[in-house]
């Protein structure tokens, strides 16, 4: 017997449906990226366990003010992203766009400060394992933030064209998942590269 069922999405509310395939795809991308950063951070600690002195002689322990400001900016951008998502769920286009713009600006600010940080270290990339790890890990993370910013800009463009509704804003959900992940990775980097030399 062949039947043509009523398309379920007409009768099930979005809350009743599971996440769409695109969201799951982003989730697994996040998992694999998490494994990449985990491998790099574990490498950092492995090399550090071999070292006699950490940071090596001639390098000061990492200063904390700049990284903490950068953290505030990035966490802030996560909060504004959350605001954007909450806004569109209430059908507020303005709230969505404001949230997105703020997120992009805050993340952009993070990158600017990272640029400043890079030009003011007292070590260069190839000086030591310490400096090698510092620039490689924070650099890779910075690239991820830049990608997030690009995605945010695309979302702003689409939002201005009215692509998103309360019922359907899947692209925003997916980007937001990535965004929060990148910010979470930063917290691990902060703890490992910046704070732990002071504490361990």
């Amino acid at each position, binding site marked *: 017997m062949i039947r043509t069922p009523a398309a379920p999405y007409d009768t099930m509310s979005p809350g009743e449906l599971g996440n769409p395939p695109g969201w799951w795809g982003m989730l697994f991308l996040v998992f694999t990226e998490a494994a990449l950063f985990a491998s790099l951070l574990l490498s950092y600690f*492995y090399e550090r366990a071999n070292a006699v002195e950490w940071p090596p002689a001639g390098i000061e322990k990492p200063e904390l003010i700049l990284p903490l400001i950068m953290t505030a900016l990035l966490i802030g951008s996560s909060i504004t992203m959350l605001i954007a998502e909450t806004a569109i769920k209430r059908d507020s286009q303005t709230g969505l766009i404001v949230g997105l713009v703020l997120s992009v600006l805050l993340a952009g600010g993070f990158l600017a400060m990272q640029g400043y940080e890079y030009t003011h270290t007292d070590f260069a990339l190839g000086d030591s394992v310490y400096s090698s790890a510092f620039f490689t890990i924070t650099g890779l993370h910075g690239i991820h933030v830049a990608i997030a910013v690009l995605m945010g800009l695309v979302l702003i463009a689409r939002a201005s064209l009215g692509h998103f509704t309360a019922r359907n804003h899947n*692209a925003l959900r997916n980007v937001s998942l990535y965004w929060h992940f990148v910010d979470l990775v930063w917290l691990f980097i902060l703890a490992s590269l910046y704070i732990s030399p002071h504490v361990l």
Partner: protein
Amino acid sequence: MATLVERLDRTWEAPTGAWSWLTSTDHKLIGRRYLGTAFFFFIIAGIGALLMRIQLALPRNTFLGPDTYNGIFTLHGTTMIFLVSTPILFGFANFMVPLMIGSRDMAFPRVNALSWYIFLFAGLLLWSSIFFGAMPDDGWFNYVPLSGPEQSTGRGIDFYLVSIVFLTVATTAGSINVIVTAFKMRAPGMSVRRIPIFIWTMVVTSFAVIFAYPALTAANILLYMDRHHDTLFFNPTAQGDPLLWQHLFWIFGHPDVYIIFLPAVGIVSTIIPVFSRHRLVAYPLIVLATVAIGVVSFGVWVHHMFAVGIPDLTNSFFAGATILITIPSGIQYVAWVATIWRGNVIWKSPFLFVFGFFVLFLIGGFTGVMFGVIPIDRQVTDSYFVVAHFHYVLFGGAIFPVFAGLHYWWPKMTGRMLHERWAQLTFWFMFVGFNMTFFPMHILGLLGMPRRVYTYNDNIGWDALNFFQTVGAFVLGFGVLLFIINAIISTYGGEDAGPNPWEANTLEWAVNSPPPPYNFVVLPVVRSADPLWDPPTPEGEAEPSALELADGKETYGSSILDAEAERVLPMPQDSPWPMFLAIGALILAIGLLFDLLPATIIGIAIATIVLVAWTWPPATKEEAMTL
């Protein structure tokens, strides 16, 4: 009112013409491309092996110089692992997963197309190293410091690093695709207990890819930085540690061999019930065993490093895990024997190859247990004994099932049968040739012959065995040639297969051979684990329902555990974006490999633009629903 088939034909056109072929997102076409491309790499890496065997046939031979030999063994291993084994199995997955779950395509058809393009480009990039006179030549695991900036001054290693990371994008994308497809697109009624075993193995494999490949990527990034940007990660004179490379590599590398092995045994578990005419015994335990292998495979990697000088206490933990991982394989062996025991076996070529696998992987498994015994490992690792071991488990344990799969699914993919007697001949040449080539290697290893040697002295007793092995290699190669001939003949004049020549039990056999672009005219609803063996509906009862979805390029999405129909999923039209993105990524890869900043920038620019175009919603609102 047009018939269902007419309506479907309108929206699901088969590719006609070059542009249509290049932009197609049909999983069946992409699956066949994967299989063809991987088989092509299999042949060229196999020819590399034959060249090596010619060089080793005689002591102090001058057929190949050391640099060429070392490049060839590196390309051979790297290709067989990265460009043959995994892609060929993902090729089967691509073709069969949507069919086996009663769906019309993968969850992300365009990403699927992208994966193949990247696989092709990455493989060609790696092999192009020959034309630059820069074959990577430090083996497929590429140990530092030999592969570092001071020791390997040419570009060979860079070809390896960049091609592999490039390829990783394809493998990872493919894995995500498999998982989401298996999670969200199963036929209504295909609950967790009814999922075909091949799907299970592909899902576990894909999770392993997601968590294991990043360790390799991390290692490759660090070595790339050492080689191109003067970092010191692996430089022992600057407090860097060469062993870090080994840890990262093997944290990836050991799960990787299970990434290869699991889909292969998934094929075995698919074929045995069909040719035993008995459902798979202990299906739940096999599923648990599959998951157990996937998980435990992450905890054994140091067994590749037992000889590096790590303290015994640490080594012992990994020896325990290594020995433990035998058990899930044992579970499967007993379940297979039980299935065969209770069934009525039909010895057709797919089953013959399964028998070959059964014998060869058993041998490989035994030497594997020996390698778990740390002192024995330290005696025979890095010798021809380990070369024997891993060929038994990778060739015997994965390539034989691949050939089983090729013979089993050939009718479904092409609509024609392979010639059966010819196929059995293929098997015997391969089986005998394989054992002739690789069994004596156990002995050579015990006699002290290290691996990766381009020649050997003539007064130490290795001559006869080496010569014998070379003969065996050509017997094996001849077997493969027989398959190729069989394939060509079948394509042009093989017997018509019909939908289900093997009287099999899973959904791919419910449709024509080859399947139409839309797979199923009506989407099935499943009520058992062996849908095609279900007894006929008793008189008076309603037939199980099937779902009609014929006005638009669409399939169903369902819930993860119970497979309840959830939503209609629009499938994309043909798209050029995957090809363009792959081209942009290739340009980026070339920029990174050759230190060409303009190429790097152009590659990034193309990739960015294409990605925006790709993810920009299409005009119709319905399609926008699921982006």
